[in-house]
């Protein structure tokens, strides 16, 4: 049996298959489909300092092999997360990485400080990339703002830190570089791509929020390209997320240079997938002759012509 454990600087995971923020609820919703303790890690829905009502429906619409969403970080706020969900999550026997979003640097720091004091979390993922929250500053499009948030959080919070990057930038390697230098233990690539969907007969947008974020199999080639570009250029462990639909997608990301992956939209349309991928990874690595999963990370070979 190949060794599936991975280490991303200070973040230690029993295996590289995690589930993505906003696609797994608070894990309770998935308990009937996935053996939760077997997952490499769970990243619950993004938490904001105060409750957010979220965007008006329709909040999702299907596109060709993809899903557009504008949920708008509907959540009950940090206090409710700690009271209602944290104990349950920490009792599941797997790594729990809380995901937070703030409107400004100060909000990120205050939440990180508070969560850092909660015993048992495996890490913190900074959502500096949500495309559905108007009014807030989009930290993730600017290397300096990205660095400033990551550095600030590192000073106030001892948890391993993951910066979740937006793909809606000209050069994602510059943002990844900034996050790494500021002390991120890993970067998650990527959040959703801005998109929209129109009902032309009624001359109306379909989403209540007009625009939303595209996810699902449709985005995988683009995210794969981004993972490869960052892996080549920036010495930081990568968690890849985008359109994973089966075990081959997982291995493609690992070969491109990701140390771990997250399953997102597939949790909605194939809710038992995440659990099955762990066994399938084991088999795939064994048949590729790997003793451990680290052996396959970043092994892409470009033929010389």
């Amino acid at each position, binding site marked *: 049996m190949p060794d599936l454990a991975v280490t991303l600087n200070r973040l230690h995971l029993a295996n590289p298959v995690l589930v993505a923020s*906003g*696609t*797994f*609820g608070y894990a*309770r*919703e*998935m308990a*009937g*489909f996935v053996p939760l303790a077997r997952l490499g890690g769970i990243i619950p*829905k993004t938490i904001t300092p105060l409750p957010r*009502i*979220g965007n008006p*429906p*329709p*909040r*999702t619409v*299907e596109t*060709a*092999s*993809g*899903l557009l*969403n504008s*949920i708008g970080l*509907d959540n009950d706020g940090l206090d409710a997360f700690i009271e209602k969900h944290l104990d349950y999550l920490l009792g599941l026997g797997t790594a729990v990485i809380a995901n937070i979003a703030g409107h400004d640097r100060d909000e990120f720091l205050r939440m990180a400080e508070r969560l850092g004091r909660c015993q048992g979390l495996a890490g913190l993922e900074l959502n500096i990339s949500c495309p559905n929250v108007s009014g807030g500053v989009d930290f993730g499009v600017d290397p300096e703002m990205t660095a400033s948030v990551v550095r600030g959080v590192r000073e106030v919070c001892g948890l391993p830190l993951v910066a979740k990057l937006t793909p809606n930038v000209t050069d994602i390697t510059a943002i990844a570089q900034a996050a790494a230098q500021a002390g991120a233990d890993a970067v998650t690539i990527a959040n959703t791509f801005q998109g929209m969907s129109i009902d032309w007969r009624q001359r109306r947008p379909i989403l209540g929020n007009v625009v939303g974020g595209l996810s*699902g*199999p449709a985005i995988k080639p683009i995210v794969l390209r981004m993972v490869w570009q960052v892996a080549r250029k920036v010495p930081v462990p990568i968690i890849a997320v985008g359109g994973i*639909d089966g075990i081959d997608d997982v291995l493609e990301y690992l070969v491109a240079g990701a140390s771990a992956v997250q399953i997102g*939209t597939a*949790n*909605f*349309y*194939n*809710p*038992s997938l995440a659990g099955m991928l762990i066994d399938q990874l084991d088999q795939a690595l064994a048949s590729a002759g790997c003793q451990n999963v680290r052996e396959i990370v970043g092994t892409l070979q470009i033929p010389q012509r």
Partner: protein
Amino acid sequence: MQIIVPVIEQVRVARDTYRLRLASPELARAALPGQFFMIRSPGLTNPLLGRPFALYDTYLDDGGNPAGIDVVYLVVGKMTGLMSTWSAGDRVEVWGPLGNGFPTPTAKHLLLVAGGIGNTPFLAVARAARGLRGYAAAAAQKRVDNITFCYGTRSAEYLAGLDDIAPLGVELRLATDDGSRGHHGFVTDLVADWLLKNTPGDDAEQPSHARTSSRPPAAIFCCGPEPMMHAVARLAEQHKVPCWLSLETPMACGFGACFSCVTKVKQPGGGWDYRRVCVEGPIFPAESLAF
């Protein structure tokens, strides 16, 4: 429960409307009237997401044991178009049963109100209320004295499943937008008429049958397009008849993970909050919704 099950048969039951029979004793043993299933084609990414469909009814094997489920659907788009091409032996991915189901009726007279494809939950509701079949391990038990089914569609050719429900001793009242069958107009006209004749007015004395029994005289279960359900909810409120609505909100997962299926639910302290229809519904007491 997420499983891949075979199609047993596909039968056209009205214009653009089909009954799909899926073999699965597990799903059939678990399902309650008013609950729903998410259905998709395994392995396909276009269409990608499952789509929600109400339990039409369970079907039984020769020994009377639950053997599978029926859903009835109207072709409106990508997934329902694909579904209409399925035939016996095709394999279909299903997860469920999901949602809360209708409450056990405590009224003497059940008024079922359907608009369009919103008729689908009511066959099983009627069968259960009549005590003709037990669902989800419960024994069959008669709950109501009378059932009236008000059902409206665009035109007669869309009316589905009348032959299934009429034999259960259900009084049918039909309406079509074009007058091709039944009342020429909205199903809500039929509801207004029924309520006027069968419930006390606002200032009336308690009717005699209400005095001799602790059971409320009537209750309404309703499913259909939102404006129609809104109108029925208003009528029910005027006539002080308890009313439950089954919402048809579009869904991405069906089990509470995505937060896409939200509707406005009134809060105890006033105001409203978005709540997930797939886990807190799809059936809500009408007065709890903020339209």
